[in-house]
């Protein structure tokens, strides 16, 4: 029988660190503001 192993919650600092300098891609929308936002 397959038993699901309880996996300890990954502590924040244990997360795989993002390579230094990499920036998450901007969300596709909404786009850039060309003049000003009212």
């Amino acid at each position, binding site marked *: 029988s397959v038993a699901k192993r309880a996996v300890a919650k990954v502590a924040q600092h244990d997360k795989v660190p993002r390579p230094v300098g990499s920036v998450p891609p901007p969300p596709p929308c909404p786009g850039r503001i*060309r*003049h000003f936002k009212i």
Partner: protein
Amino acid sequence: VPAAPPAPLGCDDPESEAVAEVAVSYINGHSHHGYKFALNRIENILVLPQGPNNDIIFLELDLLETTCHILSPLPLGNCTVRSFTAHAVEGDCDVKLQKLDGKLSVLASKCHSHADSSEDVLQLCPDCPLLASLNNTDVLTAVTAALNDHNSKTADAYLRLLEIGRANIQYNPVHLVYVEFAVAATNCSAEAAKDNVEACQLLPDDQSNFGFCTATMVIRPSQDLKVNCQLYGHQVPAPDVLFFSRVVWVRSSQDTS
């Protein structure tokens, strides 16, 4: 394994900007009143493939009013976006387009325009004049006085009012009314109009000559009036611009479909 669906279009992708340009051109080309609008932001874009080389595209656009009246022959790229402190007007538009064999066409559009809130403007600029209702008494008085003043001094055609575009009223340190309005030349000279103004009719569509006036009327501490009217010269009107030459319009926030 079926090909992976194409990545969704980003709102700043060149293809999205090209679609937005077609949509904004359509909106300005089919508007009957007010001012030309410029693209401020692509809020969202959704592409629904219908078959080979056939997509339906839904676009949500955030536009800003420019200083060009809708009748102005100036290309949109030459039109200045109304500044925040001049009490900007925003247009929210939903547009449905079809891209068939690479050719874009607008199937439907619906827009709602509204002025920025007075609180926003005053927060940034406490003494900035605010937009006034177009049927405010001082506004109507200023437009009438300005048009009469122009017609009493010009050697050219007698001008009739087409629509009041916008009006600001300032109370401090001087009480003044600033108005913008669209006009059309009639078949009379201003001189002839003095004798029989009823005979002065708007020129027929194949000779129509529209123009635009701005005026500042100081109410206090002293009375003063400055008027500036510019005629655009005869242009071949788009079919639906003819709509203008029959009715004088007073405009508030506006829905157009």
